[in-house]
């Protein structure tokens, strides 16, 4: 049988850059084909080439794309419009930006219905409502008349999917459909996509960088690197034995549960695509590369049902499972940082004279403690207040109440400079955390100058040492941030924090803007620094696999409060709070899910502006009872420093 989509030798150029180079694959009806790869390797451009929606200056130079036997690339633009949305539809990464902000949801779906199904008026409205129902939007009739900004991220992505379905496409292209969403919402959206694919027998092209998402959703996998497809195979065989060195290294770079050793990193970067590339594109980063790899571009080789472009295919040594070293759980006696009753409330002002009518309780009564040389991970979904905790600790946001004791000294507004010498921060986005107008050396000197660390004459030497310590070349100090890649920038940001020799570093999602292989480098670096300098980390993240790798202790936050706290092993392996349970089970994993029952959360996190009465989690909790709706639960101790705030757990103990 002919496949639904057949792509042969697709070549796409944008200006001088050849972003897609000779890509061939096929997708059958009812099948999910995943394109996997790191950023900038040409996945999205492949998809946009199929839709013929390339950005200005882009064009498909050669190749063929057949959809149901029809050559899409040969169609005149007028007929192509019928194909777009009608034969193949696409959903994008950022649903906030991808929906028109000033047109009602119902109308946006209606447009596609009018175009591809000739529906108008009440019929269109009815059909749109049906589509919203199909993608699991609650209260669909009312939602038709809302604007995208009134919906949560998860609902917006469902609307996006509904719109894509309106033309009853045979192929659905999903470009990183859940990357911008929280894990619990990601799980919901992926469920919807899987269900729809089966129900409608659509082919699906899933573009993602997340191996976990691939493992749970794809039937077949293609790995892209530097504009080329380098490996292809069925999901099971691919995950059992990836053949290309790049695929293998992607696996090894992934932090995994119970891990504790060093992660494999991929040195170097993806080569620029505008040069004339000779030989295997991965050769320069490949530990197995031989002379031939550098001169001759490898051809496809078939191993069982896998295809791979590597000269060494099949001859690579068997993959060694990394040794698993458990995190030490020994506790130091004295806490470096002790936080009690931390509150950050933002006033809401309304009315004629801007009276304060209430507060957003971004952080509400949080207690934390971190010992020297250890890592506490603060975990939660976006909007739960975890970043605000970090900023309040450094007094970047003025806390409303609470006491902070650092190294035995109570921190007040007066001795803030003591605080700033002892605690520093590493930010999420290395592109916005470095001033583009300052040289790296000046960036590193800034803190030392401001806090008067060391003698002025010695600071230049200190800069060289810092650069060395975070693995940057000596001449980096004289250059500007734009000369560095994302990973290198994050190293600079870490060096900046270390410049004043702090004992505590607050890391706010330091790897979530980075690719997996680069993330591995940064995690290794953080670990090394902790070992050699005895640093304590407050690691703020939503990524549970990173927590598993790095943290000694974990605190889980929900709507401004910590709901579960304990040793990392205890909280992640045997979570007790229903929310933690849901979080842990929502993370897409490469291995089959084991452990306590899987919880799929319904709905979204409520707004901290107006949290539910009683336990904040009760509207989404499968175990909620009457008492949960009335009182906020107290702390239930489970021993070994593990505690939860949950009526349900309290009842079991």
């Amino acid at each position, binding site marked *: 049988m002919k496949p639904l989509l057949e792509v042969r030798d697709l070549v796409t150029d944008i200006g001088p850059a050849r972003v897609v180079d000779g890509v061939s694959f096929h997708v059958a009806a009812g099948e999910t084909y995943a394109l996997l790869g790191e950023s900038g390797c040409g996945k999205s451009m492949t998809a946009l080439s199929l839709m013929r929606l390339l950005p*200005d200056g882009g064009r498909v130079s050669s190749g063929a794309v057949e959809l149901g036997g029809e050559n899409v690339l040969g169609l005149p633009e007028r007929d192509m419009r019928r194909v777009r949305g009608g034969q193949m539809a696409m959903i994008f990464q950022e649903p906030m930006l991808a929906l028109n902000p000033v047109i009602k949801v119902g109308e946006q779906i209606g447009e596609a219905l009018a175009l591809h199904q000739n529906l108008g008026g009440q019929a269109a409205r009815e059909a749109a409502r049906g589509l919203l129902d199909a993608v699991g939007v609650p209260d669909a009739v009312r939602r038709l008349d809302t604007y995208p900004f009134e919906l949560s991220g998860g609902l917006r992505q469902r609307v996006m999917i509904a719109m894509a379905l309106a033309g009853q496409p045979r192929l659905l292209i999903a470009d990183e459909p859940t990357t911008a969403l929280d894990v619990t919402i990601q799980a919901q959206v992926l469920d919807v996509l899987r269900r729809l694919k089966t129900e409608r027998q659509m082919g699906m092209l899933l573009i993602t960088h997340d191996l976990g998402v691939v493992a749970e959703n794809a039937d077949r996998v293609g790995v892209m690197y530097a504009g080329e497809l380098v490996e292809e195979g069925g999901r099971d065989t691919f995950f059992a034995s990836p053949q290309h060195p790049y695929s293998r290294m992607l696996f090894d770079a992934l932090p995994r549960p119970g891990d504790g050793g060093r992660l494999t990193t991929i040195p170097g970067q993806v080569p620029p695509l505008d040069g004339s590339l000779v030989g295997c594109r991965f050769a320069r980063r490949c530990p197995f590369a031989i002379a031939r790899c550098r001169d001759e571009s490898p051809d496809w080789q078939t191993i069982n049902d896998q295809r791979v472009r590597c000269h060494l295919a099949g001859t690579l040594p068997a993959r060694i499972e990394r040794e698993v070293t458990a995190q030490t759980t020994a506790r130091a006696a004295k806490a470096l940082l002790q936080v009690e009753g931390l509150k950050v409330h933002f006033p809401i002002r309304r009315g004629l004279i801007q009276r304060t009518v209430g507060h957003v309780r971004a952080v509400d009564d949080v207690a934390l403690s971190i010992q020297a040389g250890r890592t506490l991970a603060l975990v939660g979904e976006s909007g739960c207040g975890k970043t605000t905790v970090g*900023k309040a600790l*450094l007094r*970047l946001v003025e806390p409303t109440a609470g006491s902070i004791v650092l190294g035995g000294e109570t921190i007040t507004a007066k001795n*803030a*400079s003591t605080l*700033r010498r002892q605690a*520093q*921060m590493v*930010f*999420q*986005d290395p592109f*916005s*955390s*470095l*001033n*583009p*107008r*300052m040289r790296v050396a000046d960036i590193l000197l*800034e*803190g030392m100058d*401001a*806090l008067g660390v060391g003698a002025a004459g010695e600071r230049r030497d200190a800069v060289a040492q810092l650069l060395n310590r975070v693995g940057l070349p000596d001449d980096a100090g004289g250059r*500007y941030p*734009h000369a560095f890649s994302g990973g290198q920038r994050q190293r600079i*940001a870490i060096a*900046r924090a270390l410049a*004043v020799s702090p004992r505590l570093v607050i890391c706010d999602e330091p790897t979530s803007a980075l690719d997996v292989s680069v993330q591995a480098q940064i995690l290794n670096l953080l670990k090394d620094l902790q070992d050699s300098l005895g640093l304590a980390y407050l690691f703020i993240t939503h990524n549970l696999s990173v927590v598993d790798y790095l943290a000694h202790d974990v605190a889980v936050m929900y709507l401004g409060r910590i709901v579960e706290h304990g040793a990392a092993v205890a909280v992640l392996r045997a979570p007790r709070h229903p929310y933690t349970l849901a979080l842990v089970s929502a993370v897409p994993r490469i291995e089959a899910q084991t452990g306590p029952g899987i919880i799929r959360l319904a709905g979204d996190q409520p707004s901290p502006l107006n949290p539910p009465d009683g336990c904040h989690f009760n509207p989404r909790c499968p175990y909620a009872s009457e008492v949960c709706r009335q009182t906020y639960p107290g702390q239930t101790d489970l021993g070994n420093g593990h505690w939860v705030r949950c009526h349900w757990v309290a009842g079991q103990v």
Partner: protein
Amino acid sequence: MTIHPVILWTDALIFALLAAVLVLVWLIRRQEHLRAPWRVVAQRPMAMGAALVLGVFVSIGLLDSLHYRAQLPDSPADAPQYSVEVLSVFDALVDGLRARQEKTYSAPLAMQLYAKEFVQRDGVTVRDSSRLQHGGAHLAQADARLPDITRRALAGAAQGALASLLVFAGLAVWQARRMQTSPGAWLAAWRGGRLDWPARTVVLMVATMLMLGGVMMQLAAGYHVFGTDKVGQDVLYISLKSIRTGLVIGTLTTLVTLPLAIGFGIAAGYFRGWVDDVIQYVYTVLNSIPGVLLIAAAVLIVQVYIESNPDIFDTAAARADIRLLALCLIMGVTSWTGLARLLRGESLKLRTLDYVEAARAFGVSNARIISRHIFPNVFHLVLIAIVLDFSGLVLAEAVLSYIGVGVDPAMYSWGNMINGARLELAREPVVWWQLGAAFAFMFTLVLAANLFADGVRDAFDPRLGGRR
């Protein structure tokens, strides 16, 4: 003959500005991230062509800003007395244009006065226009005029072409030596457009301007190229003298605007709270008053001040100059609000960025955060505003002078030229050359400035990202 140098207020400011620009250029050359966008500007043919035109205008303006008073010929050597007339180096260069006054209107390239009058000719009184004292005075017969003009134009064009060939040859040799190739190879690269700067446009532009200049000089030696005005002064001379006024208004006003806009804009965005409230209040108040009326009020005040303190100013030029300066000041005070609002918005965004948070985490002082983190990252907006505002200000001068609240009526300016010529439009046949010359000069300057501003904006605005 000795001279007595005169430094008017605006002269001092112009040369201070020139010094500041030179220092800035030197600083920019040392900073890679500042130099890069300028290199992009330098690669755009349109921007470079415009820059050349601007360069010519600026040179004339600068020459016209070196003022002096000449010694009176009959004054004693030990106690020299100087003329009350303030001249400039530019006046000395084009002395012929300045000195050749006619009685009244004459058309461009004419040899007779425009208006007919009764003259005695061969004992008979006839109604005819009399010959000009200077324009075409070297001609014996009226029918020799056209051939003479053609000959002069051709000669001028030839001279210009020769000069541009020389310049081009020099350029080729110099560039070839710099790139270490032969001049022939450089020429081939030039012809093929394979150089890293728009050399073809630049050479073409230089040649055009040199030839135009040659034609002008040849014609101006014997005629009034743009005719004469009501009091018989050469219109070309007036137009050229007006260049300085336009440039002063376009640049000095910005000089007043910048500190206000940068200071208030960044402070409002960075500190927020009551500082923001106060600054927003001030600029809403200023913005709400119709600009023309505020300028009118202020100019009247200056006029009252000048008239009640006549002894401060020893020459008419000084009096006109102080009014020009006051006009720049008041236009600056009324026009800083737009840029301030832009900078406020940008600072509001920048202050939440992680690198500012990181600096605050080190306890870096506000002044240092503003000078190292905020200002360098809004600088491109300031630059874009400077070049974009320039042309608007030049055009505004004309309108204000027309209303009567612009520069001193005795000052050479395109606005005054238009104002003076407007009433003559009703004349039959119409006197058009004064208006035409003013509009043509103004258009050339403003168009060049706009095209240059476009290039600068495209290169500096990160939002445009090279998109056109």
